[in-house]
Structures are given as structure tokens and as C-alpha cells.
């Protein structure tokens, strides 16, 4: 079954402003071009805790799952 893009888009709303800003840029720039496989990786990444996610995006903590690396890379691109 294909992943609902609208649901994933909504789940990019986070608890921390830093992440909201990062995701706003990502949604504008990258989101519509994601393949089904990338969307599945993103959905998986979105289950992370917000502080851990922000730490991975800003590079203060290494990406803890290879599957997330591509998405973390896109999110961190200024």
C-alpha cells in the first residue's frame, strides 16, 4: 500500500521550532520529489524524538541508522 503523502507532510510538524523551520524548507524544496522509497525512509525517521532528530540534523550527533542518512542530508542542507 502506498504511503499517504499528506499524512507524512503533517507529521513534519514538530515540537521544536528548529525542526519546524528545517522541515518547512524541506517541504518546499524536496518533499514533492521524494520517491516512495525515500518517503518510507522519511516516515521511519519521523518516529525519532525531536531532540535526537535535531541533533542529527545539526551534526552534533551521528545519524544512528543508515536508512535515515539520505533524509538527514537533505534536511540539513541550508
Amino acid at each position: 500500500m502506498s504511503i499517504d503523502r499528506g499524512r507524512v507532510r503533517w507529521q513534519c510538524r514538530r515540537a521544536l521550532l528548529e525542526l519546524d523551520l528545517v522541515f518547512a524548507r524541506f517541504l518546499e524544496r524536496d518533499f514533492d520529489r521524494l520517491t516512495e522509497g525515500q518517503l518510507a525512509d522519511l516516515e521511519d525517521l519521523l518516529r525519532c524524538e525531536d531532540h535526537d532528530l535535531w541533533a542529527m540534523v545539526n551534526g552534533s550527533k551521528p545519524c544512528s541508522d543508515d536508512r535515515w542518512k539520505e533524509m538527514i542530508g537533505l534536511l540539513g542542507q541550508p
Partner: protein
Amino acid sequence: MNVAKRTFDAVIVGAGGAGLRAALQLSESGLKTAVLTKVFPTRSHTVAAQGGVAASLGNSTEDNWHWHMYDTVKGSDWLGDQDAIEFMCRKANEVVVELEHYGMPFDRTDNGKIYQRPFGGHSQNYGQSPVSRSCAAADRTGHAMLHALYQRNVRANTQFFVEWMALDLIRDADGNVLGVTAMELETGEVSIFHAKATIFATGGAGRIFHSSTNAFINTGDGLGMAARAGVPLEDMEFWQFHPTGVFGAGVLITEGVRGEGGILRNGSGERFMERYAPNLKDLASRDVVSRAMTTEINEGRGCGPDKDHVLLDITHLSPETIMKRLPGIREIAIQFAGVDPIKAPIPVVPTAHYQMGGIPTNYKGQVVAPKDGNPNAPVSGFYAAGECACASVHGANRLGTNSLLDLLVFGKSAGETVVEDYKRGALELKPLPADAADASLARLARLEGQTGGESVHEVGLEMRRTMQKHAGVFRFDNLLKEGVTRILEVAERAKRTEIKDKSKVWNTARMEALELDNLIEVAKATIVSAEARKESRGAHVRDDAPDTAEFPNGRNDNEWLKHTLWYRDGNRLEYKPVTMKPLSQEVEPIALAKRTY
């Protein structure tokens, strides 16, 4: 249209700290409890709270609730209600120890007690010396609190409706609150949540400002719903600002940057703080720095094409110092300002952080409004807690670590009040009026059918810019007056927003339009209340109410020692007295004095 109906003993809107604490009280007492939340509970904005939670445990230094109460009343600039403040400070130890028992991983002292650290504004012996009163879990206190409460709620069988947005409060002809209408994002369907008790715990509305530290979810949904249903909003002119948020983004740049030698500069590169605070310069207190920045911008000495911000310069520090001492700040500047602070200064502006006002409640968490001569008559069936509520414990200015305490104490208290009323049979499921869902359905139909309207983004941006310029951290009579007119114009435009995406499911555009409906009510309440209050008090600082011998800090207790109540209907204001009398006989009222530190 046929609208599905669900029935509960209690419905709670919002699953941050206050909502989860209230839900726990109800579920553990056996009440059938529903919690509605736009996002997964542990992604509520409580997660962002780092500082800690205040409690006079006295684990690190001698402490007691009397001192905490004094600090809170003084911090509030005497606008806080002393009965609610006494209640909160006396309950602090109990709610913190409870949280410890729920598994909250507090930092520990060597002998195993909860470790406590000092925090601004908290003192020993009525302002004499700093006290260690803040209990924290590293720098993730809010996060840890939310997880502990969520797990406990799962155990207690609280029923969560995740990714549901509450739309409107349901009241009957007598004003009783009977529940809410809500939309499930996955289907776009509207349901009625019919309940004996309705608790709002929807958080603040910091997104009314262009520069805000708040996450995007903080759209004041509970305040909008309450205002549309005829409930007044209290003390909405009082917003806490932080001087250095990244311009255009809002992310905080900690005071530590100025501590390391960061310098604020205006459009001509001048170190302007030398003029405002010759001794402390860039290290002056938050309010002094914020006011100086605003004055520079308002007088045309700002930076950038619109001269609408100033610069925080650390380029004179060595790259090694920046990398070593301020690594997080460098990353924030690169990400959100597009500058590497090693090479170029960071654009900053004073940034909205916390909403002191809200839905008026008493210390029991009951929503109150004037009725038949009683300024604080409970609204039957309606309760509120946390940042969306105004108990009022923060008055005109909140102390750090008192917000997490507020949501624990008043979340629990609202829950306890509902349980007590339930047990003595005072809560009943009153019949729903036939038109219970009509207002919500009409709002959705309007959005559905709107043509030739404006984009939500454009109208929202205009609101946020207007609020930032006209009702920011330092306020001017002419700007406030002009701002009221402008916000009322924006409110008219908000009635005609149009969304291009009309799909039913997971429609983020529709959500944002509904959120704007709530934000605009908060914006109106804020600017109308601020224009009317002709004094300076706490976080509300007016240029035309300066510090004089007659009015210390610009505060005028003869005329303005009172709470503002804003009503959406007619955009009208009323006032009610501040409760200066504590709850018990065990403490004397904290007498009025000038707020100095």
C-alpha cells in the same frame, strides 16, 4: 449533514504537559476520558522546555513555599492572583515528587535526592540571595516530563485521539459547556465530543508574532475556540520576549553569546548598547537590551533593506573560541540566518516566547467569567490549564521554571475538580442543542466554497508582521493605536481566506486556515488590551509610561492594578480586580512594592 457523536465523562483538548497531567487524574479515578491532539502527544511543545520545574524542596539550599510565593508575586509585578500563587507554590513539592514516582529521570545529588539549581528571579528569604529551586532532567526537562506522563496515561487507559483538531466549543443556551466539535485529519470528518466536563490545555499562541520561539503548532486553538464561544480572554497584553532571536526565524541565541563577548550593532555598525547601558553594555538585563534594540529599529537605525533588525557580532572572537564555546550557536546561525558567525554578524530581533494571559480560571482550574456581579463565576462544565489558561499565577511576567510547575499543578487541579464534581453527582451530560455542530460546519463550508479569497500565508504574514511592529516588546501609543486598526483589517481579510487544495484527507492547507481563525482572535485580544493599558507593568512596557517617582517603573497601581478581560463580541474590554488576598490565613498578602532586583 450527519455528524457522528462520541460521549465521554471528560474531553481534554491538548496533550502537552497540562493536558496529560489532567488526563491522568481523570483516568486513574475511573472517568472515561478522551484526549484530542493535533500531533502525537510527545511532540507537544512542552518538549522544548529546558530550564526545569520550580519546587521549594530545599535539597540544595534552604527553601520554603513562602519565599517561592514572594518571588512569584514580585515577578508578576503584583498582577498575579495571590490565592492561585499560594496554591501553586504550596503544591509544588507534591507534584514534583509525584512525577518522580512516575519515573521522571530528575538529575540527582550525591545522596540521591533531586538535584536543584538556581534560576533567575528565585530567591531565599524574600529576595535576599539566590536559591536552588529548579529541578531538571539535564536540558530535556519538558521532554522527560511529557514521556513520564504519557506512559502513565497509557497505563491508565486514557483514550487518545491523535491527529484530531478541535474546532469549536459547544455551549447550550444557558452557557453550559457540553464538549467540542473536532475534525479527524485522516478523514476530514467532523465529530461531536459530548462530555460532562471539557478541559482545554491547548498551549500558547506565540505564532501571532513574526519573531517567535514557539513551534508552528502553537496557534492558540483553545483561545480562539473560547473567544468564539463568548468566553473572555484575560491579560492578553502580557507576552514575555527574549532579546536575541534569529531575525526571520525566531530561534533563540542564548545570552551566553553576549557573555562570551558578543556585541550588538545597529545599521551604521555602532555598538549602541554603550548609549543605553554605559556600564553593563551588551550584558544589561533582557528588558533593557530588548528596549534598546527596538528603539534603534524604530528610529531608523536598524539593519538590512527594511532596517528591521540589528546585528549580533562575534566576528572579533577567534574561530577556535566560537567552535569551542558556542558550537550550537554557529550551527543555528548557518542554518537559520544563512551566515557563518565566524565571518559575519547574526541578524537578531526581540522574539516572543511566552504568553502570560489566557482563558481566565481560578486555582481549581475552573474557567471563570463575570456573571451577575461576580467577576469570577465558574462557567459550568469548562476547565483550562497550562499556557492557554490564566489562573493567574504569572501576572505581568513569568519567572523561569514556573511554567512547567503551572502545568503540573493546574493540570492536576483541574482534573481533581472534575473528579470531585463527578463523585458528588454534580456533573451531568446535558442535552446537546440541535445546532451543536453548525458553527464548525459553517466555517468548513465557507472555506470549501470561498472563491477570489486571499491566501492563508499572506494574511497570516500580515498579522505576524503587524503584531511584531505594533505590539512588540517595547510599545508606543501611536503604534498601538494604528496597530489596532490594522489588525481589525487583517481580521476582516482572515474571514475570506481561500485554499486551493479542497481534498478531504490530510489537508494541511485547511488546517492552517483553521489555525489562522484562532490566531487572529489572539492577535486582536493582545493588541486591543495592550493599547488600552496606559501603564508599564512587567512585560508590558510603554514608552509613554516611564519610570518616575510617582510611578516607579511606569506602574500605576491606582488605575491599573486590575486584570483585563477582552471579549470577541464587540471587541470590548472589561476589567476585574486582582486577588491580593492569599488562599489561607498562614500567609499575609505580599504588599505592593517597586519591582527591583
